[in-house]
């Protein structure tokens, strides 16, 4: 019974495919999975917009939208109708072709990233041997669309926002890739399906998720930082800083194209949360062995929604980083830490099983983190926090 519920979508798609003639079967199989992805993730996107606006509202001591539907649940419907019926304004001096293509390239590239994520047991669209490499290659293509959007608008704010965004995304590409290389090294495969299966083992009821190892935890922290920077979320949202750059690189976009950019940004958030879940949090595997009766796709989506909630929480809490601060942080702190993480993962592997490797690896990572942090902060002078009230 538990197994049927777990595989219900796989069985459903196999049943639909078996109703059709043999010649069409592979095509329809793939099409069904594609339609499922295109239906589910924009639905989650709608849910997340409500979650974000209400959540941010409560953190900022105000109520979010509450007019449309009970507790503002129908707000995405209102937003959708608004964006679809707004006039599509293109500035006269803008480059019409590039201006049109930019949101399309973004959305296509982001949707392609979902193809390799294993959303449940046997529930990935394609099981590629080099799945992780494919995901990162597609992620690198999104930067070009942001540049195209900013440049084609012929607007100083857009261009500045686009330049900042591209510089930030290139700087944090390296920590993103390097923090996952330790995982690949220990698993021995670039295939996301094999990485999840390697984490699906249990000792004393606790799972072998990589986040529970010292190098995995450090890698997860660095992956989160790099992922937040890659998707241009606070505290790295200088490119779309609303108080500085109007709306950054999508200043000149209105109506449906703006909705496409918004969709692309949130879907990017989902896909990179999905990747983080797969690599570090065990993908679709359950936290305790006794909980294996719950279907695997429920675990995957709960972990993704948990990551999204944490991202929204961080957005409401931390202040924005300046451009030079974030680039310094990337190149001078995070990248050396990822290289050290790689060495520590190798030490972990070669010290063999036992308690010694836990102590050695944690000591190395903590020691370098504390010393590195202190050395870099030595030159900066911070006084005690002071408050100014409006009297």
């Amino acid at each position, binding site marked *: 019974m538990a197994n049927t519920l777990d595989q219900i979508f796989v069985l459903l798609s196999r049943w639909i495919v078996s109703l059709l003639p043999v010649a069409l079967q592979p095509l329809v199989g793939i099409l069904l999975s594609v339609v499922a992805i295109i239906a589910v993730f924009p639905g989650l996107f709608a849910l997340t917009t409500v979650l974000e606006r209400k959540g941010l509202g409560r953190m900022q001591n105000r109520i979010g939208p509450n007019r449309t539907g009970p507790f503002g649940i129908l707000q995405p419907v209102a937003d959708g109708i608004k964006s679809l019926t707004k006039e599509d304004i293109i500035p006269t001096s803008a480059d019409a072709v590039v201006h049109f293509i930019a949101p399309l390239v973004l959305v296509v590239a982001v949707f392609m990233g979902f193809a390799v994520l294993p959303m449940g047991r046997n529930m990935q669209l394609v099981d590629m041997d080099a799945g992780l490499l494919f995901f990162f290659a597609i992620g690198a293509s999104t930067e070009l669309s942001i540049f195209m959007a900013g*440049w084609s608008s012929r607007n100083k704010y857009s261009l500045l926002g686009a330049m900042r965004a591209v510089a930030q995304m290139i700087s944090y590409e390296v920590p993103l890739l390097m923090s996952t290389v330790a995982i690949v090294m220990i698993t021995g495969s670039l295939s996301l399906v094999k990485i999840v299966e390697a984490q699906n083992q249990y000792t004393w009821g606790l799972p072998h998720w990589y986040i529970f190892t010292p190098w995995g935890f450090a890698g997860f922290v660095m992956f989160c930082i790099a992922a937040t920077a890659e998707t241009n979320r606070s505290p790295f949202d200088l490119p779309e800083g609303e108080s500085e750059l109007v709306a950054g690189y999508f200043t000149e976009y209105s109506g449906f194209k703006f909705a496409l950019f918004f969709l692309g940004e949130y879907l990017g958030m989902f896909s990179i949360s999905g990747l983080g879940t797969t690599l570090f949090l065990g993908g679709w595997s359950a936290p305790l062995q006794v909980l294996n009766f719950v279907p695997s796709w429920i675990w995957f989506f709960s972990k993704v929604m948990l990551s999204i909630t944490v991202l929204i929480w961080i957005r409401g809490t931390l202040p924005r980083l300046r451009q030079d601060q974030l680039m310094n942080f990337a190149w001078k702190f995070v990248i050396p830490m990822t290289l050290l993480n790689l060495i520590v993962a190798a030490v972990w592997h070669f010290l063999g099983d036992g308690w010694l490797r836990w102590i050695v690896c944690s000591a190395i990572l903590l020691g370098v983190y504390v010393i590195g942090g202190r050395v870099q902060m030595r030159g900066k002078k911070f006084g005690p926090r002071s408050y100014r009230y409006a009297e």
Partner: protein
Amino acid sequence: MNVVFWILAVITVLGGLTAVTLKNTVHCALAVTTAFAGLALLFLQLDAQFAGFAQILVYIGAVAILVVFAILLTRGSETPAEGVFSRTWFAGLLIAAAVFAVLGWAVLHSVAALPNESAAPAVTVLQIGTALMGRYVLPLEIVALLLTAAMLGAVIVAMHEKGEQK
């Protein structure tokens, strides 16, 4: 030869042609990006998945962005005064046509000697990794040194010199 190959070939060649003939430099950079994408898909069609994904990651994700940054830093997006083609454009075109004629003649002349389609090689990433650490470890280390030297060199060449007006 199937439809997919023809479509990809047309995309690649058209991308290359528009990249060298358009007036606006940024449009040229975007057109050459589509040529890179077409080539990456051709690699995927040739069952070289690692090369295809590496092509997307490096060329579209890094080289194209580098080219675009350089165009913006050197004000290449403004239209030049005397046209976009150099004074000796005809000689260049003639040389390129001659090169294509020679290469095309060589390929078509040796069609009979070219091998036919063999079974698709099942290349796993594990094999590539073993090859890189075994047979090709020396080129790997040399490329690592080369990339380090190139990175340091590019930073030093493009850096503002001390005392120079910014």
